[in-house]
Protein backbone atom coordinates (compact mmCIF):
# COMPACT_ATOMS: atom_id res chain seq x y z
CA UNK A 1 0.00 0.00 0.00
CA UNK A 2 1.01 3.58 -0.38
CA UNK A 3 -0.21 7.00 0.61
CA UNK A 4 -1.93 7.38 -2.80
CA UNK A 5 -3.92 4.17 -2.31
CA UNK A 6 -4.95 4.65 1.28
CA UNK A 7 -5.36 8.39 1.97
CA UNK A 8 -7.50 11.07 0.37
CA UNK A 9 -7.48 14.81 0.94
CA UNK A 10 -10.40 16.99 2.00
CA UNK A 11 -10.30 18.50 -1.48
CA UNK A 12 -10.67 15.03 -3.07
CA UNK A 13 -13.65 14.32 -0.84
CA UNK A 14 -15.34 17.59 -1.82
CA UNK A 15 -14.87 16.67 -5.48
CA UNK A 16 -16.47 13.25 -4.94
CA UNK A 17 -19.44 14.21 -2.75
CA UNK A 18 -21.87 13.32 -5.56
CA UNK A 19 -20.16 10.08 -6.58
CA UNK A 20 -22.54 7.22 -5.66
CA UNK A 21 -19.68 4.68 -5.58
CA UNK A 22 -17.82 6.67 -2.92
CA UNK A 23 -19.29 6.03 0.55
CA UNK A 24 -18.25 8.45 3.26
CA UNK A 25 -18.46 6.96 6.75
CA UNK A 26 -17.97 8.91 9.98
CA UNK A 27 -16.74 6.98 13.04
CA UNK A 28 -16.15 8.89 16.28
CA UNK A 29 -15.24 8.18 19.87
CA UNK A 30 -18.01 10.66 20.71
CA UNK A 31 -20.78 8.78 18.94
CA UNK A 32 -23.04 11.85 19.00
CA UNK A 33 -20.64 13.99 16.92
CA UNK A 34 -22.22 12.85 13.64
CA UNK A 35 -25.64 13.94 14.80
CA UNK A 36 -24.42 17.50 15.38
CA UNK A 37 -23.18 17.77 11.79
CA UNK A 38 -21.32 15.62 9.26
CA UNK A 39 -19.96 15.77 5.75
CA UNK A 40 -22.78 15.79 3.20
CA UNK A 41 -23.79 12.26 2.26
CA UNK A 42 -21.79 10.59 5.02
CA UNK A 43 -23.30 7.68 6.93
CA UNK A 44 -22.41 6.84 10.53
CA UNK A 45 -20.97 3.76 12.15
CA UNK A 46 -21.12 3.58 15.94
CA UNK A 47 -17.98 1.76 17.10
CA UNK A 48 -19.61 0.73 20.40
CA UNK A 49 -22.85 -0.72 19.03
CA UNK A 50 -22.23 -1.46 15.34
CA UNK A 51 -18.69 -2.86 15.52
CA UNK A 52 -18.63 -4.62 18.92
CA UNK A 53 -20.43 -7.75 20.01
CA UNK A 54 -22.89 -6.62 22.66
CA UNK A 55 -22.25 -9.54 25.03
CA UNK A 56 -18.70 -10.87 24.64
CA UNK A 57 -15.66 -8.59 24.32
CA UNK A 58 -15.06 -9.13 20.61
CA UNK A 59 -15.99 -7.82 17.22
CA UNK A 60 -19.22 -8.53 15.41
CA UNK A 61 -18.82 -11.72 13.39
CA UNK A 62 -18.69 -12.03 9.60
CA UNK A 63 -22.45 -12.48 9.23
CA UNK A 64 -23.21 -9.51 11.49
CA UNK A 65 -20.73 -7.33 9.58
CA UNK A 66 -22.35 -8.37 6.29
CA UNK A 67 -25.80 -7.56 7.66
CA UNK A 68 -24.59 -4.18 8.96
CA UNK A 69 -23.04 -3.03 5.68
CA UNK A 70 -25.93 -4.40 3.62
CA UNK A 71 -28.40 -2.47 5.74
CA UNK A 72 -26.34 0.76 5.57
CA UNK A 73 -26.06 0.49 1.79
CA UNK A 74 -22.35 -0.27 1.36
CA UNK A 75 -21.48 -2.49 -1.62
CA UNK A 76 -18.40 -4.66 -2.05
CA UNK A 77 -17.15 -2.54 -4.96
CA UNK A 78 -17.72 0.82 -3.25
CA UNK A 79 -14.82 3.07 -2.32
CA UNK A 80 -15.19 3.49 1.45
CA UNK A 81 -13.74 6.74 2.83
CA UNK A 82 -13.56 6.86 6.61
CA UNK A 83 -13.16 9.94 8.75
CA UNK A 84 -13.78 10.96 12.34
CA UNK A 85 -12.79 13.03 15.32
CA UNK A 86 -9.83 12.48 17.65
CA UNK A 87 -7.40 12.74 14.73
CA UNK A 88 -9.07 9.77 13.02
CA UNK A 89 -8.40 7.30 15.88
CA UNK A 90 -11.70 5.52 15.47
CA UNK A 91 -11.76 6.03 11.71
CA UNK A 92 -8.37 4.28 11.56
CA UNK A 93 -9.80 1.57 13.80
CA UNK A 94 -12.70 1.16 11.35
CA UNK A 95 -10.24 1.17 8.42
CA UNK A 96 -8.34 -1.70 10.04
CA UNK A 97 -11.67 -3.41 10.75
CA UNK A 98 -12.78 -3.11 7.10
CA UNK A 99 -9.40 -4.60 6.07
CA UNK A 100 -9.88 -7.38 8.64
CA UNK A 101 -13.09 -8.36 6.85
CA UNK A 102 -11.51 -8.01 3.41
CA UNK A 103 -12.98 -4.79 1.99
CA UNK A 104 -10.77 -3.96 -0.98
CA UNK A 105 -11.08 -0.23 -1.53
CA UNK A 106 -10.97 1.67 1.74
CA UNK A 107 -9.31 5.01 2.45
CA UNK A 108 -8.90 7.52 5.25
CA UNK A 109 -9.65 11.23 4.91
CA UNK A 110 -6.33 12.82 5.89
CA UNK A 111 -6.88 14.96 8.97
CA UNK A 112 -10.38 13.62 9.57
CA UNK A 113 -13.15 15.71 10.98
CA UNK A 114 -10.82 18.19 12.68
CA UNK A 115 -9.03 19.22 9.49
CA UNK A 116 -12.39 19.51 7.74
CA UNK A 117 -13.68 21.79 10.51
CA UNK A 118 -10.51 23.85 10.79
CA UNK A 119 -10.73 24.43 7.02
CA UNK A 120 -14.29 25.76 7.64
CA UNK A 121 -15.72 23.22 5.18
CA UNK A 122 -19.45 22.49 5.13
CA UNK A 123 -21.13 20.17 7.65
CA UNK A 124 -24.81 19.24 7.47
CA UNK A 125 -27.36 17.56 9.70
CA UNK A 126 -29.25 16.12 6.72
CA UNK A 127 -29.38 12.33 6.82
CA UNK A 128 -28.54 10.55 3.56
CA UNK A 129 -30.47 7.56 2.31
CA UNK A 130 -28.66 4.69 0.61
CA UNK A 131 -30.39 1.68 -0.95
CA UNK A 132 -29.65 -1.62 0.78
CA UNK A 133 -27.05 -3.97 -0.68
CA UNK A 134 -26.05 -7.59 -0.37
CA UNK A 135 -22.60 -7.27 1.14
CA UNK A 136 -20.25 -10.26 1.35
CA UNK A 137 -17.35 -10.14 3.83
CA UNK A 138 -14.26 -12.36 3.90
CA UNK A 139 -13.16 -14.42 6.86
CA UNK A 140 -11.12 -12.30 9.32
CA UNK A 141 -7.57 -11.69 8.11
CA UNK A 142 -5.72 -12.81 11.23
CA UNK A 143 -2.41 -11.65 9.73
CA UNK A 144 -3.28 -8.11 10.89
CA UNK A 145 -4.84 -8.91 14.31
CA UNK A 146 -2.81 -9.91 17.41
CA UNK A 147 -4.18 -11.62 20.51
CA UNK A 148 -2.85 -11.64 24.05
CA UNK A 149 -0.82 -14.87 23.94
CA UNK A 150 1.02 -13.75 20.84
CA UNK A 151 1.74 -10.43 22.55
CA UNK A 152 3.21 -12.16 25.62
CA UNK A 153 5.33 -14.38 23.32
CA UNK A 154 6.54 -11.31 21.44
CA UNK A 155 8.31 -9.88 24.52
CA UNK A 156 11.98 -9.53 23.60
CA UNK A 157 11.35 -11.17 20.20
CA UNK A 158 9.17 -8.96 17.97
CA UNK A 159 8.75 -5.23 17.77
CA UNK A 160 6.17 -4.14 20.31
CA UNK A 161 5.11 -0.55 19.72
CA UNK A 162 3.09 1.03 22.49
CA UNK A 163 1.50 4.16 21.03
CA UNK A 164 -0.05 5.62 24.20
CA UNK A 165 1.14 8.90 25.66
CA UNK A 166 4.41 8.77 27.65
CA UNK A 167 2.53 9.14 30.95
CA UNK A 168 0.30 6.16 30.17
CA UNK A 169 3.31 4.08 29.03
CA UNK A 170 5.22 4.88 32.21
CA UNK A 171 2.19 4.12 34.37
CA UNK A 172 1.59 7.69 35.57
CA UNK A 173 -1.82 7.79 33.82
CA UNK A 174 -4.19 4.91 33.08
CA UNK A 175 -6.19 6.45 30.25
CA UNK A 176 -5.99 9.34 27.79
CA UNK A 177 -6.44 12.53 29.76
CA UNK A 178 -9.88 13.33 28.37
CA UNK A 179 -11.18 10.28 30.27
CA UNK A 180 -11.47 9.65 34.02
CA UNK A 181 -8.39 7.87 35.36
CA UNK A 182 -9.88 5.34 37.74
CA UNK A 183 -9.44 1.96 36.03
CA UNK A 184 -9.30 -1.67 37.09
CA UNK A 185 -6.08 -2.70 35.36
CA UNK A 186 -2.48 -2.29 36.51
CA UNK A 187 -0.50 0.66 35.15
CA UNK A 188 2.62 0.32 32.97
CA UNK A 189 3.59 -1.36 29.69
CA UNK A 190 4.58 -4.66 28.12
CA UNK A 191 8.32 -5.18 28.83
CA UNK A 192 10.55 -4.47 25.78
CA UNK A 193 7.81 -2.45 24.06
CA UNK A 194 9.01 0.87 22.72
CA UNK A 195 6.93 4.01 23.23
CA UNK A 196 6.16 5.92 20.06
CA UNK A 197 3.01 7.94 20.80
CA UNK A 198 0.59 7.85 17.86
CA UNK A 199 0.55 11.66 17.96
CA UNK A 200 4.16 11.84 16.76
CA UNK A 201 2.90 10.49 13.41
CA UNK A 202 0.42 13.34 13.00
CA UNK A 203 0.55 17.09 12.59
CA UNK A 204 -1.46 19.36 14.91
CA UNK A 205 -4.26 19.52 12.31
CA UNK A 206 -4.56 15.73 12.32
CA UNK A 207 -2.98 15.06 8.92
CA UNK A 208 -0.25 12.43 8.71
CA UNK A 209 3.37 13.51 8.60
CA UNK A 210 5.36 12.90 5.39
CA UNK A 211 6.77 9.46 4.60
CA UNK A 212 10.29 10.74 5.22
CA UNK A 213 9.34 12.12 8.64
CA UNK A 214 7.57 8.87 9.53
CA UNK A 215 10.52 6.71 8.46
CA UNK A 216 12.84 8.85 10.57
CA UNK A 217 10.45 8.69 13.54
CA UNK A 218 10.29 4.90 13.74
CA UNK A 219 13.93 4.47 12.75
CA UNK A 220 15.12 6.72 15.58
CA UNK A 221 12.78 4.93 18.00
CA UNK A 222 14.55 1.66 17.24
CA UNK A 223 11.85 -0.14 15.28
CA UNK A 224 13.57 -2.97 13.39
CA UNK A 225 11.51 -3.34 10.20
CA UNK A 226 13.04 -6.74 9.45
CA UNK A 227 11.03 -8.06 12.42
CA UNK A 228 7.31 -8.55 12.84
CA UNK A 229 5.54 -5.75 14.67
CA UNK A 230 2.61 -5.62 17.08
CA UNK A 231 1.05 -2.23 17.85
CA UNK A 232 -0.94 -1.65 21.03
CA UNK A 233 -2.47 1.14 23.08
CA UNK A 234 -5.31 1.08 25.64
CA UNK A 235 -8.28 -0.27 23.63
CA UNK A 236 -6.81 -0.71 20.15
CA UNK A 237 -7.98 2.46 18.43
CA UNK A 238 -4.84 4.63 18.66
CA UNK A 239 -2.77 1.60 17.72
CA UNK A 240 -4.94 1.28 14.58
CA UNK A 241 -3.66 4.76 13.68
CA UNK A 242 -0.05 3.53 14.01
CA UNK A 243 -0.91 0.21 12.29
CA UNK A 244 -2.15 2.35 9.38
CA UNK A 245 1.10 4.32 9.30
CA UNK A 246 3.39 1.27 9.44
CA UNK A 247 1.42 -1.04 7.17
CA UNK A 248 -0.40 1.25 4.74
CA UNK A 249 1.83 4.32 4.48
CA UNK A 250 5.30 2.84 5.07
CA UNK A 251 4.53 -0.61 3.65
CA UNK A 252 5.99 -2.75 6.45
CA UNK A 253 5.17 -6.39 5.67
CA UNK A 254 4.02 -7.84 8.97
CA UNK A 255 2.19 -5.48 11.29
CA UNK A 256 -0.59 -6.54 13.63
CA UNK A 257 -2.89 -4.52 15.83
CA UNK A 258 -3.50 -5.90 19.33
CA UNK A 259 -7.04 -4.67 19.92
CA UNK A 260 -7.18 -6.15 23.43
CA UNK A 261 -4.36 -3.73 24.25
CA UNK A 262 -3.72 -2.43 27.75
CA UNK A 263 -7.26 -2.90 29.09
CA UNK A 264 -6.73 -6.63 28.49
CA UNK A 265 -3.00 -6.98 29.09
CA UNK A 266 -3.03 -4.83 32.24
CA UNK A 267 -5.73 -7.08 33.70
CA UNK A 268 -4.01 -10.43 32.99
CA UNK A 269 -2.82 -12.47 35.95
CA UNK A 270 0.84 -13.45 35.98
CA UNK A 271 2.19 -11.55 32.96
CA UNK A 272 5.24 -9.29 33.23
CA UNK A 273 4.68 -5.53 33.44
CA UNK A 274 7.27 -2.75 33.25
CA UNK A 275 6.77 0.67 34.80
CA UNK A 276 8.67 3.87 34.17
CA UNK A 277 9.97 5.45 30.99
CA UNK A 278 12.33 2.62 29.94
CA UNK A 279 11.20 -0.43 27.91
CA UNK A 280 12.46 -2.88 30.53
CA UNK A 281 13.99 -6.34 30.19
CA UNK A 282 12.49 -9.48 28.63
Amino acid at each position, binding site marked *: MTRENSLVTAQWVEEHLADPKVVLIEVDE*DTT*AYDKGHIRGAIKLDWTTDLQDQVRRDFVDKQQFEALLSERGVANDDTVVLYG*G*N*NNWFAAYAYWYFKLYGHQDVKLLDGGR*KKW*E*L*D*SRELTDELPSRAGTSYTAQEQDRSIRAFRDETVEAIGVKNLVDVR*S*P*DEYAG*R*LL*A*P*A*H*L*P*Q*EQAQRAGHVPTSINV*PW*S*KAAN*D*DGTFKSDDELKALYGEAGLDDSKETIALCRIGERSSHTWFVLKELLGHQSVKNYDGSWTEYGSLVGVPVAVGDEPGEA
Partner: protein
Amino acid sequence: MCGATEGGLSLDGIDVKKEAIVQGRVERAGDPVGNAYVRLLDRTGEFTAEVPTSASGHFRFFAGDGEWTLRTLAPKADPVDKKVIASVGSVAEVVVSI
Protein backbone atom coordinates in the same frame (compact mmCIF):
# COMPACT_ATOMS: atom_id res chain seq x y z
CA MET B 1 -12.05 22.32 46.46
CA CYS B 2 -14.80 20.61 44.56
CA GLY B 3 -16.95 23.35 43.11
CA ALA B 4 -16.43 24.64 39.62
CA THR B 5 -16.30 28.40 39.30
CA GLU B 6 -19.47 30.14 38.27
CA GLY B 7 -20.34 29.34 34.68
CA GLY B 8 -17.95 26.37 34.59
CA LEU B 9 -18.79 22.81 33.62
CA SER B 10 -20.89 20.78 36.04
CA LEU B 11 -18.91 18.26 38.07
CA ASP B 12 -21.95 16.11 38.86
CA GLY B 13 -21.04 12.43 38.87
CA ILE B 14 -17.28 13.03 38.91
CA ASP B 15 -15.20 11.95 41.90
CA VAL B 16 -13.13 15.12 42.12
CA LYS B 17 -11.04 13.75 45.00
CA LYS B 18 -9.50 11.17 42.65
CA GLU B 19 -8.99 13.33 39.55
CA ALA B 20 -6.73 16.22 38.55
CA ILE B 21 -9.22 18.17 36.49
CA VAL B 22 -8.33 20.85 33.96
CA GLN B 23 -11.34 22.47 32.40
CA GLY B 24 -12.52 25.75 30.99
CA ARG B 25 -13.90 27.65 28.06
CA VAL B 26 -12.67 28.95 24.71
CA GLU B 27 -13.81 32.46 23.80
CA ARG B 28 -13.51 34.87 20.92
CA ALA B 29 -14.21 38.47 22.02
CA GLY B 30 -16.15 37.09 25.00
CA ASP B 31 -18.34 34.75 22.93
CA PRO B 32 -18.01 30.97 23.31
CA VAL B 33 -16.22 29.12 20.49
CA GLY B 34 -17.96 25.79 19.91
CA ASN B 35 -15.81 24.48 17.09
CA ALA B 36 -12.34 24.70 18.61
CA TYR B 37 -10.00 21.84 19.49
CA VAL B 38 -8.07 21.89 22.75
CA ARG B 39 -4.94 19.73 23.05
CA LEU B 40 -3.35 18.82 26.39
CA LEU B 41 0.45 18.61 26.16
CA ASP B 42 2.60 17.17 28.94
CA ARG B 43 5.58 18.85 30.61
CA THR B 44 7.82 17.83 27.67
CA GLY B 45 5.37 19.22 25.12
CA GLU B 46 4.18 15.75 24.10
CA PHE B 47 0.53 15.34 23.14
CA THR B 48 -1.59 13.67 25.82
CA ALA B 49 -5.20 14.29 24.82
CA GLU B 50 -7.46 16.44 22.69
CA VAL B 51 -11.13 17.36 22.87
CA PRO B 52 -13.44 19.45 20.69
CA THR B 53 -15.19 22.21 22.59
CA SER B 54 -18.90 21.92 23.34
CA ALA B 55 -21.47 24.30 21.87
CA SER B 56 -20.89 26.50 24.92
CA GLY B 57 -17.12 26.50 24.29
CA HIS B 58 -16.30 24.20 27.22
CA PHE B 59 -13.64 21.49 27.50
CA ARG B 60 -12.40 19.17 30.27
CA PHE B 61 -9.39 16.93 30.91
CA PHE B 62 -8.50 14.43 33.61
CA ALA B 63 -4.78 15.01 33.96
CA GLY B 64 -2.23 14.17 36.65
CA ASP B 65 -0.23 16.23 39.11
CA GLY B 66 2.07 18.72 37.41
CA GLU B 67 2.41 21.35 34.73
CA TRP B 68 0.54 21.00 31.44
CA THR B 69 0.05 23.11 28.34
CA LEU B 70 -3.29 23.68 26.66
CA ARG B 71 -2.94 24.28 22.90
CA THR B 72 -6.11 25.60 21.30
CA LEU B 73 -6.79 25.34 17.55
CA ALA B 74 -9.79 26.99 15.91
CA PRO B 75 -10.87 27.96 12.41
CA LYS B 76 -9.45 31.31 11.28
CA ALA B 77 -7.25 31.69 14.37
CA ASP B 78 -3.62 31.08 15.27
CA PRO B 79 -2.94 28.33 17.83
CA VAL B 80 -2.90 29.62 21.43
CA ASP B 81 -0.77 27.93 24.14
CA LYS B 82 -1.57 28.34 27.82
CA LYS B 83 0.20 26.72 30.80
CA VAL B 84 -1.80 25.22 33.66
CA ILE B 85 -0.96 23.43 36.91
CA ALA B 86 -3.09 20.41 37.79
CA SER B 87 -3.29 18.47 41.03
CA VAL B 88 -5.35 15.52 42.16
CA GLY B 89 -8.34 16.67 44.18
CA SER B 90 -8.65 20.09 42.56
CA VAL B 91 -10.16 21.71 39.50
CA ALA B 92 -8.06 24.10 37.42
CA GLU B 93 -10.36 26.48 35.52
CA VAL B 94 -8.92 28.10 32.41
CA VAL B 95 -10.33 30.65 29.98
CA VAL B 96 -8.67 30.64 26.56
CA SER B 97 -9.13 33.71 24.36
CA ILE B 98 -8.44 33.30 20.65
